[in-house]
């Protein structure tokens, strides 16, 4: 194996790990809360084993509550089900971050979608010559949509703005590839 393919594999790994969440924070929160509950269970178990009075609930009353569920038990169970489903969802979803990869010969490059949106807005502002506050861009995984509110009475050419924004996208070649959609609002705004 040559060192070149080695570094390519390293860069692919770096980019892949940058584009997805590590879930470490979710794991830390889940495990820390779980540990608190377990610490309480352990304490109650030991207290019951040595016949000392319970802190909050004795193990006997917990098993009793599970064997013959009351409304309160069912409410607790429902809450546990919600938390459980959220945790499972966190585990199986791809955990993508709002970022794109930019191909580069020397470096592994990732860019926040917010920065990408700013760059595309800038191109649209230059081409349309409307104030920056009236151009907004949203970048999602495969689509960048630019919305422009023109000045009343002036005509904006959507194709030329699309071309200008497309040129920026082309020069960056983000991965996954971005489609450009430019929308010029029907109603303009009075003033410069």
């Amino acid at each position: 194996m040559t060192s070149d393919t080695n570094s390519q594999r390293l860069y692919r790994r770096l980019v892949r790990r940058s584009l997805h969440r590590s879930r470490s924070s979710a794991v830390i929160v889940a495990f820390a809360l779980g540990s608190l509950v377990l610490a309480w269970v352990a304490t109650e178990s030991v207290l019951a084993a040595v016949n000392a009075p319970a802190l909050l609930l004795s193990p006997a009353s917990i098993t009793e509550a599970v064997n013959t569920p009351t409304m309160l038990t069912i409410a607790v169970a429902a809450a546990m089900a919600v938390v459980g489903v959220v945790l499972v969802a966190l585990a199986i979803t791809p955990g993508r971050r709002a970022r794109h990869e930019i191909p580069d010969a020397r470096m592994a490059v990732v860019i926040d979608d917010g920065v990408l949106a700013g760059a595309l807005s800038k191109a649209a502002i230059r081409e349309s010559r409307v104030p920056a506050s009236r151009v907004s861009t949203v970048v999602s995984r495969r689509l960048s949509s630019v919305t422009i509110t023109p000045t009343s009475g002036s005509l904006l050419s959507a194709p030329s703005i699309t071309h200008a924004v497309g040129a920026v996208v082309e020069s960056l070649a983000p991965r996954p590839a971005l489609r450009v959609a430019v929308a010029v609002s029907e109603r303009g705004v009075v003033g410069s």
Partner: protein
Amino acid sequence: MTRSNRPLNRLGLAFVGLLFVAVAAWIGARSTSFAALPDIPALDATTLWIIAGISVAAIALAIVWIVTRGRGRARTLLTATDDDGHGSIEARVAADLISDDLARVTDIVDVTARAFRVRGQTVLELVVTTRRAADVRLVIDSVGRAVAALDDVLATRIPVLLHVASGVRATLAHEQRVH
């Protein structure tokens, strides 16, 4: 860009999640008498001690898991050995060199650098915070030139991960007007 084991993180989350769902399902089944589940028997002292032991073991495992997240950071970027001995370069030095090079690029608000050990190699991670409407091509090319200069200084090519970020500072920074 830490060395946290990500599949293991998924597994841990799924395990805790399924445990919660299973307990909820058990209680749900008991309350509806939909499925005939046995009563949980009364717990004797031995069982209680076992439950306490398992809980403590699980807590220990959770603590180990938590403290092993985010490993892989390195302070030293490069170590070189020659006849006279060996010298090392800290990641901070590289960060300073790159920051100095990029000081004149107005679209860049902030540069931070960290070193990580990934697969036996030291990787330099650069986080470049830009202004809101930055010329991204210019930013990336500027960083590329700064990295090329660093390559010359170090006389080697360290793997570099560049993250062009939109930070809080970027949204607070004033937008550069271009006419």
